[in-house]
């Protein structure tokens, strides 16, 4: 009897706790690589601390945040971040919808095209940026050469605020549009053809079908991609950093015209070694990302059928 009792008890224990055991690895890994760094960053942001001199760190509570709120270069970086967020996220999603629509038709070598759109995404960001920085070169860049054929003057892409933002946005959009297009495409294929057939019978044009049927039914995916794109684009670092290589890379241009918040964090942390201050930038940027993603969610949630 005693033996049976023991096994049933073990069985009950098993069904009760085993599920936690199965999901535990994720939470363990998240705890080590997600939660702990986050909490540690908050802790460091309350300190005055040199990157190389941990021993001399001292707790200053919210001094870093007070300094940050009064720092014009931080607000400049936040402005650039928001501008780049708009310039990247909106075209990304519009182009992705358009490309997905094209790929959803019965064209020849369809698989090849579908695979092709993901190629930019699996290319190394450093390689992409270096190539694009050359394309946008002032004296020998391909883009200026093409513009020159049409009689436009040479543009110093890195020098201007608008021109540098456009150049960086092009890199990001080029890299991520295909990824979003594939997500849209997968969902488009799940839309019942009977909806389109009925709409055709009612005399709806292709354009009307796209905006009135396809886009509303893709709402969950559009919300998802908006949030994914927002979290990615709010912390742009590699593109602006490598767009302007050299000793001054971290300042994002001669007048910080394309320095993003993530790049400002990098400058404070790794060229000025101000670990505490750069951690406070990280915390504020994380909060800002949540807010902007929330706005993106509210906007995309309004998509609906009339």
């Amino acid at each position, binding site marked *: 009897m005693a033996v049976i009792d023991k096994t049933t008890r073990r069985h009950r224990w098993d069904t009760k706790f085993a599920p936690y055991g199965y999901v535990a690895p994720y939470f363990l890994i998240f705890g080590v690589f997600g939660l702990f760094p986050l909490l540690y960053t908050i802790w460091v942001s309350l300190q005055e601390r040199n990157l190389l001199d941990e021993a001399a760190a001292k707790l200053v509570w919210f001094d870093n945040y007070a300094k940050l709120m009064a720092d014009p270069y931080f607000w400049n970086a936040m402005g650039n971040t928001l501008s780049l967020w708009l310039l990247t996220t909106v075209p990304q999603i519009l182009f992705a919808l358009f490309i997905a629509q094209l790929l959803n038709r019965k064209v020849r070598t369809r698989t090849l095209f579908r695979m092709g759109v993901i190629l930019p995404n699996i290319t190394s960001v450093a390689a992409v940026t270096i190539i694009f920085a050359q394309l946008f070169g002032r*004296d020998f860049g391909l883009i200026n050469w093409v513009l020159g054929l049409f009689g436009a003057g040479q543009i110093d892409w890195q020098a201007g605020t608008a021109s540098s933002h456009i150049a960086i946005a092009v890199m990001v959009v080029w890299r991520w549009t295909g990824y979003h297009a594939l997500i849209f495409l997968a969902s488009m294929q799940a839309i019942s053809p009977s909806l389109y057939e009925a709409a055709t019978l009612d005399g709806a044009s292709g354009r009307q079908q796209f905006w009135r049927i396809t886009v509303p039914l893709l709402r969950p995916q559009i919300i998802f991609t908006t949030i994914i794109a927002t979290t990615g684009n709010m912390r742009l670092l590699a593109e602006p950093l490598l767009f302007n290589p050299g000793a001054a890379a971290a300042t994002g241009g*001669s007048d910080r015209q394309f320095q993003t918040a993530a790049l400002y964090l990098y400058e404070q942390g790794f*060229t000025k070694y101000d670990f505490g201050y750069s951690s406070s930038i990280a915390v504020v940027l994380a909060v800002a990302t949540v807010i902007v993603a929330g706005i993106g969610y509210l906007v995309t949630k309004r998509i609906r059928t009339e």
Partner: protein
Amino acid sequence: MRPKALALGCVALATAVVLAGCGSDTASGGKTKLTIGLFGNFGYAELLKEYAAAHPDVEISDRTASYSDHHKNLAAHLATSSGAADIEAVDTGYINQFKATPDKFVDLNTKGGDQLKERWLPWKWEGSLSKDGKQIGYGTDVGGLAICYRRDLLQNAGLPADRDQVAALWPTWQDFMNAGKKFQEKAPEGVKWFDGGPTVLNAIVGQASVGYYDKSDKIVVGENKEVKDAWNLVVDGVNAGLSSKLLYSTPVWNTGFKQGQFATVTCPAWQMAKIKDQAGPEAAGKWDVTSVPGGGGNWGGSYLTVPKSGKNVDKAVELAAWLTAPEQQAKVFKSAGLLPSIPKLYEDPSIVDFKNPYFNDAPIGKLFTDAAKKLNPQYQGPKAGDIQTAIGNAMQRVEQGKQNGEDSWRQFVGDVQK
């Protein structure tokens, strides 16, 4: 019984793997693996082979990154006490920042460095000495200062090409700019007198008796008339259209050498290796070297440090001392043109009489040792590298037409005083 034996076997195997993992710094055959982290061109490829041949128990691998990446990675590696190479090169622009935390590095004075002290120029030795007397790095090269110029471009614009006559064109930097204006009148489309304002400005600032800091580590650049005069002079040159507006050590600047976009570039000794790498063999003999306006000067030069986090500190110190020894510095001068930081070599005939065939057989030995002897070292403060970046940005704002000279200067002074 069997499962248990299997488990035991696994434990034994796992232990063996872990032990092997711990011992991975010692390569097979008991060799010590040393890594050395460099930037740019130190001219060490041959020397490292030579050292490994003479020391069969040592295996050396080197990794080279760009100037700014190298120093930023080093800071990150030191902060986390992992990932740094056994030997890490540090440039003059960064040495002050690193020597502020000397405990991250091996104090070379405790490893026999104090006995080698006499090798180096006194100011080179002091450059890497922390406030509490710890020596964090052995000096490699010093920059010195000269002007590299394109013979063909000067000649075509009706200026002399011979190096003594060229030097006679510019006793002062003002003369240098005046010669540039003459050059620009006849220069072909797209070719400018100098590469970029920041490069010229760094050279002139490097000659000043006081630079960005005074000796008490106070930032004085805002009140420093010498620097402000240099600024005004370069701004005038930029406004007169003499600048290609390329920032040094960037890919577009490298392209500028290849495309021949500028006729002159200020030339610390290490610049010659860069020019040779960038302009390539087809430009051999087109470049020449002559003396710099305003006498001597210094820009750059480096140190080899040994981070404390390394596993083979003693062997690393030994290699660093060997690489910076007089014999090796002499070899590097001949192969890559880096000017030794060892005064004894300035009298050595094999150095003094050395001519560089790439630069039209310019007597770079005499040129640079003369300059090094005249050199009046300037005190570098803790964030000299940062300020140099900031003034470069400021000059670029003028070149890009974003600000006039005065506004840009004011913004620069405000930035560095923060």
